[in-house]
């Protein structure tokens, strides 16, 4: 079968030097344009999976394919520039202005200045921020919600085909979180990017994910659409999770 997955991992395992096993023999894939929610408790291996995708960590065994090509064959730096990334706390550089933060990857890719400038305005507008107001400010001068929008804009800056989001909204207050989730869904339909969203909140997984991967203790319990998880939970753990919806 030559159906190309946007992201695919085969028999992927990750053991740490201290012997703990973060992922055990994972087979997992994401379609182009699909949003995959990764849910699990802390220690379930979801962050490890994400770090293996952009090669911040290397697998102990198994293979990873990004757009059909083995990740191990690609230069990690070039690979990461094609994968957008949004960390939990936004990870904005505190000593850089919003403009510099957003233009990070375009600058690394040495885009012409005017193109960076145009991109900055487009992106800020896209995440509902006023370029004139925020571009020259520092992260500390923005609210948590605004900072997280900037982080999303930064991940989108060089127009990467794939975006990885590590609990992007969990540090926000419920109201802001809800608002950002709504905007995320709008962006999703608008941009049609392939996205992997880590969350520990089942409600968020159900709202954002086209499909959901349930991870526990380094093993996949189920991969399926929200409806499939509700209708045919594969394990008692999945059952216990969907009960709270």
């Amino acid at each position, binding site marked *: 079968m030559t159906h190309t997955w946007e992201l695919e991992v085969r028999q992927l395992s990750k053991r740490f030097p201290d012997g703990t096993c973060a992922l055990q023999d994972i087979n997992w894939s994401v379609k182009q344009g699909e949003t995959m929610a990764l849910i699990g408790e802390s220690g379930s291996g979801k962050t490890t999976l994400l770090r293996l995708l952009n090669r911040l960590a290397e697998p102990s065994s198994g293979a990873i394919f990004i757009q059909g090509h083995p990740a191990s064959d690609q230069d990690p*730096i070039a690979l990461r520039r094609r994968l957008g990334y949004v960390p939990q*706390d936004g990870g*904005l550089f*505190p*000593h*850089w202005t919003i403009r510099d933060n957003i233009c990070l990857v375009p600058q690394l890719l040495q885009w012409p200045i005017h193109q960076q400038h145009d991109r900055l305005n487009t992106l800020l507008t896209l995440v509902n921020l006023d370029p004139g107001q925020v571009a020259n400010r520092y992260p500390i001068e923005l609210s948590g919600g605004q900072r997280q929008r900037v982080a999303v804009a930064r991940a989108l800056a060089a127009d990467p085909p794939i975006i990885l989001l590590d609990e992007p909204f969990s540090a926000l207050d419920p109201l802001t979180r809800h608002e950002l989730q709504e905007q995320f869904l709008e962006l999703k339909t608008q941009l049609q990017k392939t996205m992997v969203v880590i969350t520990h909140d089942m409600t968020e997984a159900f709202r954002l994910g086209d499909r959901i991967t349930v991870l526990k203790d380094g093993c996949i319990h189920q991969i399926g659409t929200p409806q499939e998880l509700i209708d045919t939970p594969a394990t008692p753990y999945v059952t216990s999770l969907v009960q709270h919806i």
Partner: protein
Amino acid sequence: MSHWFSDNPHIRTTTIEWLQNGLFSVLVFLILGGSVFASSGNTIIVGSKNFLENRLLAEMFAQLIEAHTTLTVERRLGLAGTHICFQALTTGGIDLYPEYTGTGLVTILGDPPMHDPTAVLNRVRSEFRKRWNLWWLAPLGFDNSYALALRRDRAHTLNIRTITDLAHVAPTLKAAFGYEFIQRADGLPGLKELYGLQFHKVVGMQQSLKYQATDNGDVDVLDVYTTDGRLAVYDFVILEDDRHFFPPYDATALVRGSTLEQHPELGKVLSLLTNALSPARMRELNLRIQERGEAIPHVAYDALRALHLVEDDDQVTTTTKNESTSFLSYMWERRSTLIAQTGEHLGLAGVGLLLGIALAIPLALFLERWRKGAETIIRVIGMSQTIPSIALLAFMIPLFGVGVLPAIMALWIYSLYPILRNTYSGLRDAAPSVVETGRALGMTEWQILRSVRLPLAAPTIMAGIRTSAIWTVGTATLAAFIGAGGLGVPIVAGLQLADMQLILSGALPATILALCVDGLLGGIERLVRPRGLEVSQ
């Protein structure tokens, strides 16, 4: 004798240690080929310890050589104690300095004290020549030995004339002794053993302070040097050493054999001073410097002129202390000297600090990449901070001689730790989540270092440099101990003369300098602090 200007108790060294030091020095000297030392050519370097009589003798040697030879004389006066002078001499940092036979015997050779002056001289002569090719010239004619003294009225009341008399009443008395005297075998420990002396209380005190304390009646007994000029001023009684405990301390020039070989005229010229100075004459000369504040070169010139050893021309005008001048006008009078000394001071501290920055920051960058060994290396460098300054300076002499170079090296070593520790910690702990994000977005490690770690660590690094700068400016006063100049010179000289104005004239600029440097670096610290780390107003 070797009046150390030091409260460092590490004074007694065994013969074996001295031999090891000697071997080490020779080795280093061979490796460096002696190139860093100036003892070649037609320059003679005269050293001295850092007390007045020794400086005066060294100055007399220097003027004598200048008057009777074509040699150029360089003065390295006020080196911190016997160990440093001796090290400098064996390694060629200096060519000669005034030394005392008893010090040679007890402190340098580590032999037990002997009583007969001729036996002591013969012993040090043969041993020094054999071991280090150093030559003791003929004694100058006076013996500057230790003695115990009391205020005359106090001695009278207690009815004491000899040290044996003193031993009977000692348990009721308070004594102030020099730090070295308390330690030396030919000082208090030996006295205790021979005379059974046991004082009610013994306090360690600076040479010039002892006299005041005794005169005020704060303490009863003190140790004195028999040629001390102050004995002519204070009404003290010197106790008879009735059991002949104190070894003879005949003063003379101790000279490198190789220098004498190269400049045979030197031995002839210096021997003009053989038996030329009586103890009374020395007390008088010392008094002129100690109490009347006359300049050492002037007193040295007068003494040589009285011996008809220099021409009667180029009279030096007498400069005596004017008690009535206010401190400000005193400072104003000394302004050119002070400005020069401040310049030297800033130069020493500045070069030491810059070298420290130049080594510590790259080292921290390396250690940040190689964290396995980081803590060990930083701790080892941290230990260098615990070496007492005098000891560190002493270690420098076999390597770099005396003068500016060893002072800078010592300051360099002292400046390393705060910069290294802060740079390393600052880089390592700089916002880990932000660093990780940079990496995830495709920054190279170099880009992360340059654009994230360094700017975020800059305030911490600057704080380290600031600590180091204050420390270096403070420590640079010690450069005076190895003849490197700076604001330590008036401080050390002032301590010897108990001249508060002189001490302040060095201490005050040093303090102001430290404050200015701190202020300047504080400004730089604010400049390098990235915007965005705090809410702008």
